[in-house]
């Protein structure tokens, strides 16, 4: 299969459905490499810069793990302390410099649109690893991949996105991608944390999809094939506002009694209190499997953007 990718992955719309399905196919191969403990040299001699201006556990470590498993190496930072950023260097200048030292850059940044700026100043591929409350397209890829692996399709599935949909960037990219694949969307969030209008408008205008919206997860849990929970984005709220929302929605075993027996419970993690720990033992709780899928999917993406996946 020959398929041309753009240089960067900034927005989930930089990928067509065909691109995403191709990445599923490459991720399957990467999964086999990991599980069979095969030596991989696809990225030998290549360097990934992991520039994390904001804290991260899963995204950063899975990018690093992915590059190491591909036979490449990683440089970068997980805090701007000790870098020229703390001296006031602009994003554009940092990117122009790091692009001289590396072959591909993954960037997480607190400002929305930062990955777009990075792509304009970089001669090497840029991967958006989360830009403020805007998008998190690689999380979307692994979310889609996780659903595809279990459900073998995306079209026609009822997907319930619940929690902080206002600042939960993973839900922004994911809802657009699911709409493109023909899934049905249900949003449940506390008042004040609803999905932004621009996402709702895009779903309606570009995909002819009007999501069902509620303030309570109970309204749609019984018909959902996928229950996707998100935490309150404390770092994007004032402390008083955070306290107002903390604990305002919790997925419990009691609530799950009404869920389908084959529903998937997903969460981009980290979890705070929005999924009760008792749920971890439910066979439908698949969020740690989902986190694992981040490595083969990011291996697939890095290798593909570098043109070495075949």
């Amino acid at each position, binding site marked *: 299969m020959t398929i041309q990718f753009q240089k960067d992955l900034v927005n989930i719309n930089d990928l067509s459905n065909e691109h995403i399905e191709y990445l599923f196919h490459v991720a399957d191969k990467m999964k086999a490499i990991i599980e069979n403990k095969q030596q991989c040299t696809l990225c030998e001699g290549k360097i990934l810069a992991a520039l994390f201006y904001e804290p991260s556990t899963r995204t950063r470590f899975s990018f690093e793990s992915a590059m190491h498993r591909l036979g490449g190496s990683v440089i970068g930072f997980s805090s701007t302390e000790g870098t020229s950023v703390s001296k006031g260097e602009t*994003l*554009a200048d940092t990117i122009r410099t790091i692009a001289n030292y590396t072959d591909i850059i993954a960037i997480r940044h607190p*400002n*929305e649109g*930062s990955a777009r*700026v990075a792509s304009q100043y970089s001669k090497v591929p840029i991967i958006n690893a989360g830009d403020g*409350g805007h998008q998190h397209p690689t999380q979307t890829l692994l979310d889609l991949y996780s659903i595809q692996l279990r459900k073998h399709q995306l079209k026609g599935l009822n997907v319930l996105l619940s929690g902080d949909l206002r600042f939960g960037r993973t839900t922004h990219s994911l809802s657009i991608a699911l709409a493109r694949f023909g899934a049905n969307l249900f949003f449940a969030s506390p008042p004040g944390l609803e999905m932004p*209008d621009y996402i709702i408008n895009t779903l309606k205008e570009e995909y002819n999809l009007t999501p069902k919206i509620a303030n309570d997860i109970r309204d749609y849990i019984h018909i959902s094939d996928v229950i996707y929970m998100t935490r309150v984005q404390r770092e994007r709220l004032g402390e008083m506002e955070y306290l107002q929302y903390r604990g305002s929605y919790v997925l419990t075993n009691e609530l799950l009694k009404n869920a389908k027996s084959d529903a998937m419970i997903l969460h981009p993690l980290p979890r705070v209190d929005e999924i009760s720990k008792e749920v971890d033992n439910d066979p439908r709780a698949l969020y740690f499997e989902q986190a694992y899928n981040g490595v083969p999917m990011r291996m697939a993406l890095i290798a593909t953007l570098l043109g070495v996946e075949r």
Partner: protein
Amino acid sequence: MKTQMLENGTVIDHLPAGTGLHCLDILKKHHIGEESIIVFINVPSEVLGKKDMIKLQDFYIDEQMATFLSLIAPNVTINIIHEHTVTKKIKPALPTTIEGLIPCVNSRCITNTEGYTTEYDIKSKHPVVLKCRYCEFEFTPG
């Protein structure tokens, strides 16, 4: 209310009724200093029913500023006056994209923190809705 009253300057015409003072605020922020200004409010208009109008003595609006005003007043007409005569008429067409001119209203947008030039797609013309190409935030300028 005759343009002949203005010897040299600009007449900004066909502003929707109620937007004149708002447009003046924007002009003040961006361009205008100590010039003499007359704002007409609720002037009878065949096209709009009622309209607002601004006359600026000895001040000339450029094409870029005219485009900016068209985001707030899509039917705006700009008349440039020299010695009581209209020497140029600008009827700005709303473009499909906008660069610079106005900041993104999303305070978390990268364009507001490091001074990158803003870029917008015009999503809707009535009312005007801009979509930031960086953060994708949508808003009506004004």
